Every structure is written in structure tokens, then in C-alpha cells.
């Protein structure tokens, strides 16, 4: 066996390729057996009824995707418009929550007094399901779009807030001592020391909040939306289009994955060490 660096490098690459092939093969095998079991389990429902079959779901997926951009409301609205409506609400509600929760978290993380004063409120409101805010939102805002955004805001707020506070608490106290010995201005201390040092907590909060927001928007739109992924699920269900449920789950799942992967890029901002 040769042991030149080149040969070792080559062998390592080949081993990696073999490993990747094995994983890919496993994935295909798993998907195939899943569909096979699904097919067997739903045999007898091909002519309709309340169970989606693989074949019918596949057909429905093609139908939905081929009319994705159809825009002829109120009856014909393509999936792209539903998806865009949901994403818009999530981005707005989540963004506003981040704008409130990050500065507030930096404040509460550094001031013990303010933290202890507000903590009971946070602890009581945090475990409340975001959907419980929905009727209140409708009553106060009198607008379904604003209410959906408000629910997302509430769903994201506590998660970002609590994680930011936690991130600030984990900041090496010597960094703050350093800022004091340098007589750093408040702006420099907060923006150039505290925030970057607390970033791991902030990013964890943003990431968790965004996936939670995506979970919540579907449920919220089943109730208030005239458009959105939740509305799509609910109207298709009312039309007994059970095969659409599979399509919806697939679209929601893939979108959630993409959202999570995009916001995970924020981790790159966090310095090593």
C-alpha cells in the first residue's frame, strides 16, 4: 500500500464518496419502502374517500404546481400566492418581534433590577400559546391581516427575548470590565462589546423563533386568513381534497427547511473562540 500524501488524500476522497453513495442509497431505499407501505395501507381508497394515496397525491402535486401562478380570486389562487402571503406575515411579525426583543433583551440582560421587575410578566406570558392571542388581536385590531401578524409577533417575541437575555448573561464579565476600564461610551459598550458577545444567544433565539413562527402561521391562517398556507389547507379540507393535504405538508415542510437554513447563516457572524 502506498502512503504518499497524494495517495492518502486520494484514498480519503474515495472513502468519502463511498460514504455519500451509501447514504444516498439508504435514502432512496427508505423513501421507496415508505411509499410502498403507504400504497398498501391506503389500497382501496383509489376512488376517493378520506385517505390520500401516493398516486393521487402525486397527481394532485402536479396539478397544484402547474397552476401555481394562477391568480383569479376568489376561487382560483395559485399555491405561490398562498405561500407568499404566509411568508409575508411571518417576516413582518418576526421582524417586528426581533426589533423589540433584541434591544429589550440587552437591557434586561444587563440590568438585574429591571429584569427582576419584568420577569414575572415574561414568565406568565411566555407559555401562552400564540393562538390564544388571536381573539384579542381580532377584537383590538379589527383586521385579520394585522391579527395574523400580531400572533406571529407574540409567538416570536418571548423566544427572542429570553434567548437574548440568556446570551447577555453568558457574556464574559471581563469584557464588560474591559469596557469600563476603557471608559467606553454606552453606545460602544452595547453595540461593540455586548451585542457581538451575546450573539450566540441572539442567533439561537432568532432561529428558534422563526421556526416557531412558521409553525404558528399555518394554524392562525386556518382561522383568520383569506389567503395563506393555512387557508389553503382549510379550504382544500372543506372541499374534501384530501390529497391536497399531502401537497400542503410537503410545501410547508420544504419552506420551513429553507427558512431555517437561511437564518442559520447568521451563525457565521459568531466568532470562533
Amino acid at each position, binding site marked *: 500500500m502506498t502512503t504518499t500524501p497524494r495517495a492518502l488524500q486520494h484514498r480519503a476522497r474515495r472513502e468519502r464518496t463511498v460514504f455519500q453513495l451509501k447514504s444516498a442509497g439508504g435514502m432512496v431505499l427508505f423513501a421507496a419502502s415508505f411509499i410502498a407501505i403507504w400504497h398498501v395501507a391506503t389500497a382501496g381508497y383509489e376512488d376517493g374517500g378520506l385517505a390520500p394515496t401516493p398516486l393521487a397525491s402525486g397527481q394532485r402535486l402536479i396539478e397544484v404546481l402547474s397552476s401555481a401562478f394562477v391568480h383569479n380570486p376568489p376561487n382560483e389562487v395559485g399555491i405561490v400566492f398562498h405561500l407568499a402571503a404566509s411568508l409575508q406575515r411571518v417576516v413582518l411579525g418576526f421582524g417586528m418581534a426581533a426589533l423589540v426583543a433584541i434591544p429589550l433583551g440587552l437591557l434586561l440582560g444587563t440590568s438585574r433590577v429591571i429584569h427582576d421587575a419584568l420577569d414575572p410578566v415574561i414568565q406568565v406570558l411566555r407559555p401562552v400559546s400564540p393562538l390564544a392571542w388571536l381573539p384579542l388581536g381580532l377584537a383590538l385590531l379589527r383586521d385579520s391581516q394585522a391579527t395574523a401578524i400580531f400572533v406571529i409577533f407574540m409567538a416570536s417575541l418571548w423566544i427572542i427575548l429570553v434567548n437574548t437575555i440568556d446570551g447577555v448573561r453568558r457574556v464574559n464579565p*471581563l*469584557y464588560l470590565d474591559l469596557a469600563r476600564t*476603557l471608559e467606553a*461610551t454606552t453606545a460602544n459598550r452595547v453595540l*461593540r462589546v455586548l451585542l457581538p458577545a451575546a450573539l450566540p444567544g441572539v442567533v439561537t433565539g432568532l432561529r428558534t423563533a422563526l421556526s416557531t413562527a412558521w409553525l404558528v402561521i399555518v394554524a392562525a391562517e386556518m382561522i383568520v386568513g383569506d389567503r395563506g398556507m393555512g387557508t389553503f389547507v382549510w379550504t382544500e379540507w372543506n372541499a374534501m381534497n384530501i390529497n391536497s393535504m399531502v401537497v400542503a405538508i410537503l410545501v410547508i415542510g420544504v419552506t420551513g427547511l429553507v427558512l431555517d437554513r437561511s437564518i442559520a447563516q447568521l451563525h457565521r457572524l459568531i466568532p470562533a473562540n
Partner: protein
Amino acid sequence: MGTTIETDAQLPGKPPALEISKVTKGFAHRRRGFQQVLGEVSFSVDEGEFISIIGPSGSGKSTLLKLIAGLESPDQGHVRLTDEQIAAPSRRLGVVFQQHVLLPWLTAKQNVLFALQAHGASRRSAAERESLAEHWLGLVQLSEAQDLKPGELSGGMQQRVGIARAFALESEVLLLDEPLGALDALTRHALQLQLLRLSEQQRRTFVLVTHDVDEALLLSDRILVLSHGPQARIQQDLRVPFRRPRDRTAIESSEDYLTLRRELLESLTAQP
């Protein structure tokens, strides 16, 4: 470069650079109750003097340094910096911390620059600050590494950035809290010489906390020995008579060195 043996030959009426008078400090522990770490500590440091504070571990050396830095306030007594009483950290007092305390998301140079601009108003232009930072990093032989982040530097290099940062501030008094304590013996040895050279060229006032007797003897004009805590006091105030500029080999082979060293070690190991 003058000799500093006659540091007590101050002009009459000129206040010492640093005066610590009757300072006490204690901490409340949840289980052990109130612990008086420092019992009345008083001493003063003349301008341009290099003093070391040594003591057994847990004797409150670092607490004392934090009090001087204004990071903690004394229960009683006060710390004065020439004419001003220290109640909060001040740029007149530069600190080199025990761990390097560099901001990991900034490069070595950015860390020094941050120190120079953190307080907002600076009488220097951005270009001047930049060349000042480069100058100091050069003096600790880090010009090549100035654009690396702390995570890419060795422990010794990180601490040298910390030293460059403290010097660049041009504070009157530099406080060094066991700056070399976490380094391996070889690096520590090299950095001691670097500190010796810098301190002799810079003629500022230095307060070094260390538990290394040889380090204290090499660098200082005076050594204060803190007694074993709780209620630590200064139990000895030794003058180190070696001429400057100092040469390590010459000092370490002198008769005085061995006598002082023995005296210090006896003092450190003496039971309260």
C-alpha cells in the same frame, strides 16, 4: 534612562502617583458569611516606580488590583491617583488582565484600536490612532500578526496584544494582574524580558500583581508582600536595589538577589 534606586527622593510636596490608604474590602458569601478579604491596606507608589504585589494565592492580590482600577469600590479607605480619588475605572489607569480579554471578533489591531476610540472623543485622527496601534504592536513583535484574530494567536501572543493595548492608551499608571500567570514557563520567561524592556523605556508607574518571586525581583523597584488572607495586610515592603537597565543574568547571579529571594520566600511561606 535614570536609575530608580532613589525613587523616594521626590520633590517636597509632590503627591505620589498612586496612594492607597486604609483600604478594606470584604465579600458576602452565601454559605461562609461575610469574609474580610483585605484588612486595612495602605501604601503609596511614586511616579515612575514599578512595584509588585506578591502574596499567597487567595490573599486578595487581585481584589486589591481591582480596587485600584476602580472596578470594585473599597468598603473603607480610598485610592487616589495623584490629585483625584478613584471611584470608577479611568483611562488614567490601564489594565492588563489575568486572561488576555481580547474581543474575539476583532483582529489584534482592531482590539488595540477599539481601546483607543472606545471613549468616543479622541484628540487623534483615525490615521494617527492606526499608526499608534501599529507602533505598539510592533514593539511587542506582533506586526506580522496584527490582522489575525485572537483565536488564531498563541497564548503568549494574545497576552502581548493585551500589553500593547494597555501601553497604547498612554495611561499614567499601568496595572498588571498576573499577566503572565497563564503562560508556559518558556513564554513567560521571554515575556518577562519584554516587559522589563518596555517598562524601562516607558517610565510610567507600574503595579504588578504576581505570585512569581523571580518575576517580581526582575521587574520591580519595590515589592509588597501581602499576608495570608482573610484580612490580608502588607507584611513586608522590600526595596529592590538593582540598577537599571537591568540584565537578568547579572541580577540573578548577584549575592543580593539570593538574599532577597530567600527573604521573600520565607515571608510568603510564614504562617500567620
